[in-house]
């Protein structure tokens, strides 16, 4: 075998703390290395060209590139060696940037380490064998989880692109958080005026199947061929019959139900259609408030329903769908404002969240768009906004900036002035984060045109005093404690991962961060992909986002799915398990442990049982290889011999040193 080794400078990223030329020099003495050199930027066009040329000039059989992490550029270099005429799997990478030059300061130690990592890669490469991908058919349907604006956009774009879409929504209507908003920044245009038509498009689109009030129960399979089970939660109303006329809601005698759509700011009925523009516009019974469920008698809705749609006996039901890709657009939830005891949220009725305020501002909200204090219905004149409630705060485990609160708070001060011209808004802020197009101009308008008082500092305590709320904070620019006797306090609550996000991630086998936000494949270059092939992200499930960014990601995820489905077949990753028929004794232990059912027992010609891998089902985890005592089943590209070669490469030297000392 003739191996070529290419050690990358990555500008000064590697060369700054690793003697790159020295590593290349050392590599010349490694087994079967026929050529070694250093390259300034191996991933650049000239860098790749140099590799291709060297392969052809020196008749190389395999290539090692020592550069960044394989999670970044392995595909790039595989394509390069393929261009040079080699099989793309005759290639290994040594990660001497993320695992070496960037984490160690001692250049000598880094250089030794880089050299070890190159030897390790060379030793592994010596056992590499050419692998060929297999093609398999795919199911060109896509599942979109979450019917907020990101999910709506993704569903519409996919459907317009000719794909069949299954859209799943947890609540009884699509629209998500955006449907609750009054106006949107920085244009102050009406939220439902821009979202409403899109919601209607979803309901009218021939390619979209919408399951509202439904959740993802389970996911099996892999890219191109997922099988999902959808749980349709019991609504106790037959939606095929329900016309959304609202008569039931009008007559329902249980009037104290929690109104999630209105953020609990006013009660609703136990049978409920969240808002007039709901899609689908169908009623749902909340059994925790419904008298029929609590007391076992009532039946008013069943009596008044003109289409006899009420069904108190309804059970959850399940439907199976086959899809080839999944877009998760499960959005976010709001920080629990009760966690700051000093602000009294939940104890003092006139301390509310920004989303509750949004419902007070909204003409279709419970107050008809008139701002009224929850405690006494009085119109507030002095409104205090407190920012960063559940953002940038380690003490509540929310150290991140939610990103949109500064903007919506500015919007709310503007709307407050619009609604109540003789009002005064005060905003306590730490920093104003307004880096979008027309964003900073917008916050300046709130201050300059609408007279909002911005106070740089936090609020330490809010408490009721007579008819008002005393807000005590600091103005750090003045270096002084400040107090405001306010009528209403609005807490700009931050975003957190949607409740249940981690459970969904486990079903989809995607990663999430410490706060439950989903991990993208690469923070810059693959922002809507996950590390699980065929699963994509859109919107705030990946991290807090405003509307333009969510819509943009919805479209981006759709584009990714359309690109994936542009071919009729996909190529499977050939790094799968392979059975040595000679060595397999047919004990079946691998069949027992394979998480994917990718191994079955078949008989050889002599009728002996032998394990057999279904290549397109195997995901390449290697669990079987460890399970097999005679090592008869080997994960290609991660064979026992390859890992043993790596272990030996790393330990041999230590062994020799220990004999020396």
């Amino acid at each position, binding site marked *: 075998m003739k191996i070529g080794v290419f050690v990358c400078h990555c500008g000064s990223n590697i060369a700054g703390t690793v003697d790159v030329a020295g590593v290349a020099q050392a590599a010349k003495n490694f087994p079967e290395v026929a050529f070694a050199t250093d390259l300034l930027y191996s991933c650049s066009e000239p860098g790749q060209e140099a590799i291709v040329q060297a392969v052809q000039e020196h008749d190389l059989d395999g290539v090692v590139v020592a550069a960044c992490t394989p999670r970044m550029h392995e595909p790039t270099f595989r394509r390069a060696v393929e261009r040079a005429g080699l099989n793309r799997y005759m290639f290994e990478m040594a990660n001497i940037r993320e695992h070496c030059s960037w984490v160690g300061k001692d250049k000598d130690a880094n250089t030794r380490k880089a050299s070890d990592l190159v030897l390790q890669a060379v030793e592994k490469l010596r056992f590499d064998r050419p692998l060929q991908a297999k093609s398999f058919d795919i199911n060109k349907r896509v599942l979109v989880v979450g019917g907020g604006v990101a999910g709506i956009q993704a569903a519409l774009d996919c459907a317009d692109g000719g794909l069949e879409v299954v859209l799943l929504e947890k609540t009884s209507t699509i629209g998500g958080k955006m449907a609750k908003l009054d106006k949107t920044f920085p244009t102050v245009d009406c939220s439902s005026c821009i979202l409403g038509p899109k919601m209607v498009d979803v309901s009218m689109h021939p390619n979209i199947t919408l399951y509202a009030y439904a959740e993802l129960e389970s996911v099996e399979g892999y890219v191109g061929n997922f099988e999902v089970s959808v749980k349709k939660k019991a609504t106790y109303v037959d939606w095929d019959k329900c016309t959304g006329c609202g008569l039931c809601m009008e007559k329902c005698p249980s009037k104290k139900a929690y109104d999630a759509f209105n953020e609990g700011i006013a009660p609703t009925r136990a049978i409920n259609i969240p808002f007039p523009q709901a899609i689908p516009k169908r009623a749902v019974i909340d059994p925790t408030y419904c008298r029929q469920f609590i007391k076992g008698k009532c039946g008013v809705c069943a009596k008044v329903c003109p289409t006899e749609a009420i069904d108190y006996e309804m059970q959850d039901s399940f439907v199976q769908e086959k899809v080839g890709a999944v877009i998760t657009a499960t959005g976010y939830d709001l920080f629990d404002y009760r966690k700051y005891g000093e602000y009294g949220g939940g104890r003092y009725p006139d301390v509310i969240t920004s989303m509750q305020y949004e419902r007070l501002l909204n003409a279709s909200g419970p107050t008809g768009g008139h701002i009224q204090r929850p405690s006494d219905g009085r119109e507030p004149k002095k409104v205090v906004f407190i920012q960063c409630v559940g953002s940038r705060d380690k003490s509540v485990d929310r150290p991140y900036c939610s990103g949109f609160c500064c903007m919506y708070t500015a919007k709310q001060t503007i709307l407050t002035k619009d609604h109540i011209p003789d009002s005064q808004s005060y905003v306590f802020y730490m920093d104003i984060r307004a880096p979008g197009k027309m964003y900073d101009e917008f916050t300046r308008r709130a201050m300059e045109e609408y007279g909002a008082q911005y106070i740089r500092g936090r609020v330490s305590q809010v408490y009721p005093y007579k008819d008002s709320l005393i807000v005590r904070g600091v103005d750090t620019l003045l270096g002084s404690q400040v107090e405001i006797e306010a009528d209403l306090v609005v807490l700009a609550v931050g975003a957190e991962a949607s409740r249940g996000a981690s459970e969904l991630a486990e079903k989809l086998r995607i*990663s999430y961060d410490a706060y439950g936000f989903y991990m993208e494949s690469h923070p810059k270059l693959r922002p809507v992909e996950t590390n699980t092939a065929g699963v994509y992200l859109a919107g705030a499930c990946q991290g807090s986002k405003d509307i333009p960014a969510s819509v943009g990601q919805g479209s981006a995820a759709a584009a990714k799915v359309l690109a994936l489905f542009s071919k009729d077949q996909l190529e499977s990753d050939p790094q799968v398990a392979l059975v040595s028929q000679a060595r397999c004794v047919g004990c079946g232990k691998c069949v027992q442990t394979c998480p994917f059912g990718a191994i079955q027992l078949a008989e050889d010609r002599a009728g002996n049982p032998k394990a057999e891998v279904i290549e397109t089902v195997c995901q390449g985890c290697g669990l079987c290889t460890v399970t097999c005592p005679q090592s008869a089943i080997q994960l290609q590209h991660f064979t026992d011999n390859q890992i043993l070669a790596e272990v030996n490469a790393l330990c041999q030297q230590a062994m020799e040193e220990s*004999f020396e000392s």
Partner: protein
Amino acid sequence: MSAGNGRELRIVGFLCNWCSYGGADTAGVSRLGQPTDLRIIRLPCTGRMDPLFMFKALLSGADGVLVSGCHPRDCHYSEGNFYARRRLELAKRLLPTLGFDSGRFEYTWVSASEGKRWQQVVTAFTEQIHTLGPGPKFSH
């Protein structure tokens, strides 16, 4: 920044591609400094981690072995780390009987986002191995 007396010891890491290898990358991208003793072998999953690789490494002269994968329930392959946990825990418990300090081998879970945790793990484990000193050797 080698821990301890300046002389490096040999630590072999086996990391799953999806979580911990990514976590180590995240640590690198964030320039979170670490001791230089560790060398990482990339596995698709800790389910691929045969405990015999650990024994092999220790018998071949490694002073410490570290395995790291996805947190339980977060395995990219659903179940790989569940099997790994049983196998590795058992192997760890056998070490003292053979005359190896069980602290020479650790397995843990670090997700791709946990660069800081990876730094802590590497630093603490390297310190631990330096405290134990070079592993038992076979030279007579």
